[in-house]
């Protein structure tokens, strides 16, 4: 297929996934703010949401305080924040519009309707009220997008690039979320496995729709290392790193055909680490180091996909 078309499809899916993950982070952070004494201060509660999104500096350049109102507006609706939900959905729709031919009619109409519906939230003060309605809306539109594309698109390269974008973005988001939360909750490395704040960890689980899964899998109290296991190594947990690479690796095999390329190598290596890795070894080397390394490798993979498929040169 056309490289430019593949590029638009891939980024369309990444932006929708990004919007969904941002909404998840906002939603649980907001829920935490309702738990008495959940955090020392408003800023201790809201700053991590920005860390996960990776745009602390850009926020500080525009705001002087980590208030709920500032952070929510910045992450949800700010036109100046390139990864705000507003910009992510807008970019998703612009990308879709550029390649509506490559999408099933239902998929395009779904994304177009998403953008039309989104306008109902313009100008509302989400931090004050309606944030959970908004976050639910973003999540359900993202679910709809995945459902309608999965249910209606021909299983061709267009579909593969859409799926690829979804899982590259999701892996990145899950790794960042876990890293930031683990870091914050357990400032002291020795305390791993020690005392935890039940609410904080259940919030992390809820943010990736894993609370019920955790109960089913472990039927035990929430332990941070188990949360990490669930989100890193469990292949049956749909937002885990392992599950993402279970999707990514075969897609890249199919897209590459008989060509041997760097994408396949990086993906294969990451997949092997998740497939054959053991949690105690990851902890020995340090979960933070592991996740940091993962985010970098996943990002390299993204760059490599961009180079070999999406920016295809004339040659």
């Amino acid at each position, binding site marked *: 297929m056309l490289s*430019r078309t593949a590029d638009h499809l891939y980024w369309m899916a990444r932006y929708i996934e990004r919007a969904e993950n941002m909404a998840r982070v906002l939603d649980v952070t907001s829920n935490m703010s309702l738990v008495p004494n959940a955090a020392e201060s408003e800023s201790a509660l809201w700053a991590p949401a920005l860390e996960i999104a990776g745009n602390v500096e850009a926020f500080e350049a525009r705001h002087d305080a980590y208030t709920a109102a500032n952070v929510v507006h910045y992450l949800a609706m700010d036109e100046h924040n390139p990864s705000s939900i507003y910009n992510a959905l807008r970019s998703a729709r612009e990308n879709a519009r*550029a390649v*509506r031919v490559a999408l099933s009619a239902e998929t395009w109409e779904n994304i*177009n309707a998403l953008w039309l519906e989104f*306008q109902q939230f313009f100008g509302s003060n989400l931090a004050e009220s309606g944030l959970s309605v908004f976050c639910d809306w973003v999540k359900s539109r993202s679910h709809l997008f995945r459902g309608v594309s999965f249910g209606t698109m021909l299983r061709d390269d267009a579909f593969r690039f859409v799926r690829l974008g979804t899982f590259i973005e999701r892996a990145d988001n899950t790794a960042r979320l876990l890293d930031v939360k683990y870091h914050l909750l357990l400032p002291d490395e020795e305390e791993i496995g020690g005392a935890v704040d039940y609410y904080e960890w259940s919030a992390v689980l809820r943010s990736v729709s894993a609370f019920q899964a955790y109960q089913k899998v472990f039927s035990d109290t929430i332990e941070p290392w188990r949360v990490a296991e669930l989100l890193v190594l469990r292949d049956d947990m749909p937002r885990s790193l392992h599950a993402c690479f279970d999707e990514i690796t075969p897609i890249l095999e199919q897209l590459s*055909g008989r060509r041997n390329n760097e994408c396949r190598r990086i993906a294969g290596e990451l997949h092997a680490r998740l497939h054959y890795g053991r949690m105690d070894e990851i902890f020995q080397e340090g979960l933070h180091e592991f996740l940091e390394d993962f985010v970098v490798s996943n990002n390299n993979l993204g760059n490599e996909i961009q180079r070999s498929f999406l920016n*295809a040169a004339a040659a």
Partner: protein
Amino acid sequence: MDMATNLPFDEMRPQPDAVRKIYRAYADWLAGVPLAQLELKRQEAEVLFRRVGITFNVYGESSGKERLIPFDVIPRLLGADEWRTLSAGAIQRVKALNMFLHDIYHKQEIIKAGIVPPAILANAQYRPEMYGVDVPGGVYAHIAGIDLVRTGENQFYVLEDNLRTPSGVSYMLENRKMMMRLFPELFRRYSVAPVEHYPQVLMNNLRAVAPPGVQEPVVVLLTPGAYNSAYFEHAFLAQQMGVDLVEGQDLFVRNNAVYMRTTEGPKRVDVIYRRIDDDYLDPLAFKPDSMLGVPGLLTVYRNGGVTLANAVGTGVADDKATYIHVPEMIRFYLGEEPILANVPTYELSKADDLKYTLEHLPELVVKEVQGSGGYGMLVGPAASKKEIEEFRLRILSSPTNYIAQPTLALSTCPTLVESGIAPRHVDLRPFVLSGKTVSLVPGALCRVALKEGSLVVNSSQGGGTKDTWVLQQ
């Protein structure tokens, strides 16, 4: 036109108390439908069009401001025999125009015969680059939009031919889909000829004009991009034909061939249905600063390495200065009498015509020879004295740039407007497709001037569209 009262011909009610035969069943139905319900249907259509994204961007406005072309829920009806005449006339015309284009870029016999003046070779739309170039099948205008207006029961005129990159066919198709969704009961009362196969006919034609020797031609649709006002149509047609929708940046030229950049490497392209004007096609040949085109495309095209539809240089045949010669062309090339009439036209390059025009400005429509989209024209009866005097100065400064025509009382069709159902002026653009054969699907884009009394139907000037029903016997 009814000369005595100067009232325009109404498609449904030529006289206040008489409904034309083909409209009877519709009029009966309409009488039983409350206005509020029609208004609801209109709103439903608007929501659906927005959802499907049948919108266009207005240059300079942010992406939140996409516009819809207003859709009228009351269709225009054409009887089977009316349609037979119109379609035969349109086909005849397009055949002659294609022969004219071949001639003007080869032996120029029509000039030698004294029918078209040699000045045509100096026309800005004449492309010397095309001289001596053979295009597959001798087809230049693969897609032609013929604008027709009606002034009486049996009087149709061709207002202009659109042979460059005519647009609007997606509205013909989407309007039909919308009408079938909104008013299924009407399609049970009327046997309406289907139009949905248009993209298939187009695709067959495009494949048929591939460079000789190509077995499985790769066809693409070349668009200026998502910000072009007709982008929806480009995407729609590419999707319906199952071809790639490409931008200039997706194509490149190598070894006398055109390729597109794909995720699996370069892929050869054989036929380009281009929706970019000649001037922007190839920065090496035409406008050097064009970012929309493909450097080197014209050279490959001239060497027969790729087919462009429409061909380069068709503009010389739909120019308003050429228009006046089309009836003669039909006699010259086909040896037939024109089925469809031209609007009587004054050429302001001729002293007598100029004199007449300047004396009768308040009654005439004056058009720029190369204008389009309803810009740069004077509608005498609707203009103020001041506007007429200003236009007089423009004409005097370069008379050869203008032609003049009597103001036609375009027929009206009942239309849903704010005040209820009222007559509004309409025109009709059928799309004639040329490949191995010349044909058209039984339907057309019907444009309607929504402003009361307005004769300008262009969407850029506040016009809307209607579905056109060609009735089967």
